[in-house]
């Protein structure tokens, strides 16, 4: 019996965040300024998700738009190969790396995770790491081609484990997130905090075990696939919170941004006091 996913004669599901939300908040004077890398991909969806949380969002298509005024940066989903080639053509790789090193928070989803990974496998011929910064090895297209793309339940752990989150809770745990030709983290360094995993199916488990034998896995647990990580100011997911109602990840990112801004301010006033004392 054939079941149908589709709408039959009904409307189709609205694509979340494709259009600005009516729930977008008015901008406060001190709204965080977030750049969204807009070389290719689903950057509009991120901008609209952040808009709902009261961030002041601007698109970054050229070096000049990657300004010092930005408090944080989002690298969206899209085709990582394309985004890397366009970034190189526009001489944006070094400015983006400088942004990552500046300590201002950066949030990457899907292709964005690949961008931020120190090591990536399954790249195109001659592929190389793009920006780096996250001490992880990421496997491109870990789940296979589009027919393997799926909505799957994601378990939160670490700082985001249920009951541990500071601000508002992430909606419905475990939330079913969209993995679209998605990558996965197959090795995470010691300084990396795992924030989200999902249960590996037999094929994925075999793939993880094979990688484990090659190089050693974080925690050596091949029953779970690592799909969300944080290391200092860098946050990345293999899936697309921007395509869903789950604003928790963007909220967490904006918390990182405001904490970073606050610590900068403390540093600033401390050095001012020091100067005054001299």
């Amino acid at each position, binding site marked *: 019996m054939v079941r149908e*996913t*589709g*709408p039959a004669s*009904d409307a189709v599901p609205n694509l979340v965040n494709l259009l600005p939300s009516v729930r977008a908040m008015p901008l406060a004077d001190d709204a965080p300024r977030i750049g969204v890398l807009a070389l290719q991909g689903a950057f509009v969806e991120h901008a609209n998700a952040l808009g709902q949380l009261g961030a002041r969002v601007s698109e970054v298509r050229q070096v000049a738009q990657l300004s010092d005024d930005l408090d944080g940066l989002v690298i969206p989903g899209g085709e990582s*190969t394309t985004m890397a080639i366009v970034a190189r*053509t526009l001489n944006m790789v070094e400015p983006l790396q400088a942004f990552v090193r500046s300590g201002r928070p950066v949030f990457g989803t899907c292709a964005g995770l690949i961008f931020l990974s120190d090591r990536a496998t399954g790249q195109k011929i001659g592929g190389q790491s793009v920006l780096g910064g996250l001490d992880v090895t990421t496997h491109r*297209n870990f789940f296979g081609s589009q*027919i393997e793309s799926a909505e*799957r339940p994601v378990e939160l752990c670490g700082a985001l484990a249920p009951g541990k989150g500071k601000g508002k809770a992430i909606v419905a745990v475990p939330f079913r997130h969209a993995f679209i030709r998605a990558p996965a983290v197959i090795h995470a360094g010691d300084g990396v905090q795992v924030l989200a995993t999902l249960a590996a199916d037999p094929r994925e488990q075999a793939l993880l075990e094979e990688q484990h034998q090659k190089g050693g896995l974080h925690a050596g647990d091949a029953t779970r696939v690592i799909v969300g990580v944080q290391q200092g100011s860098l946050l990345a997911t293999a899936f697309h919170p921007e395509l869903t109602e789950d604003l928790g990840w963007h909220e967490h990112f904006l918390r990182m941004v405001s904490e970073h801004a606050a610590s900068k301010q403390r540093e600033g006033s401390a050095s001012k006091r020091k100067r005054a004392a001299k």
Partner: protein
Amino acid sequence: MAKGNGVANGEAVVPATHADGTGTWKVKAGLAQMLKGGVIMDVVNAEQARVAEEAGAVSVMALERVPADIRRDGGVARMSDPKMITEVKAAVTIPVMAKVRIGHFVEAQILQHLGVDFIDESEVLTMADDELHVNKNKFTVPFVCGARNLGEALRRIAEGATMIRTKGEAGTGNVVNAVHHARAMNKEIRRLSSMDPDEMFNFAKEIGAPYALVKQTAELGRLPVVNFAAGGVATPADAALMMQLGMDGVFVGSGIFKSDNPQKRARAIVEAVTNFNDPAVLARVSTDLGAPMVGINCEDMKVHFSKREAGNMEEGADHNGVVKKAKNVW
């Protein structure tokens, strides 16, 4: 339907959604969202696919002959040899698309089995069914379909297409039809958005589209799925023109590998789509590209791909899109 051999039409396919969460609307429409702001390029072999990937294509369309050659050769154009599609898939890491004939759901089953990432049910190939398109809701793999106006787009979405493209007139290197289709769609959506809800029932009937999708489009002020430009795009300026007309991305068919310097032109079109609003960038990337493909004036054509729609051929056109007494060339 008669169950002559025990198989009802198309039921040989695996169910579209599985317990494991594959094949949902979100992941099918979501891949199209990931392709936004990108260029999808026609390639006829693995080598061209590599050139396209290196130039920054977001995806490649694997087909045996580009539309310009299909137009020249005539005859029946069908799904490509799986061998060629598999070779292209092995050569690149970006998503691979392939075309099936309108209504040919078995070609679609074959492509889904091959693990193609997106299927284009395309008017560029010869039609296999003159009344029905493929019921795309039955498939796990997502589909893109051409549309020359809002009604056609919504009919395809109702059948399960999670991505739409303008039909343009593929293989001509002439962007006029793509512009015509994009503007027609924009105009209809604007008109719809300002409509009294009472008028929408009749509008749905007039354009031959399901009322629910008409109402949804009115509420959104755009198509409910990603919408690309296709057909006749040959230069970076053509691509930027389509982006400024509100398209989410661009297909380039014959335009790249029928030109003098495919590598350079492909890169230029990719850059033009990212910075479609910046004339300085467009001027730079348009410079010194060598000769573009030779164009065809649409008035001189015998076969109009864009007039092909199962069950709804344009007036005066036969099932091949051949127009005896042309009223217009769109």
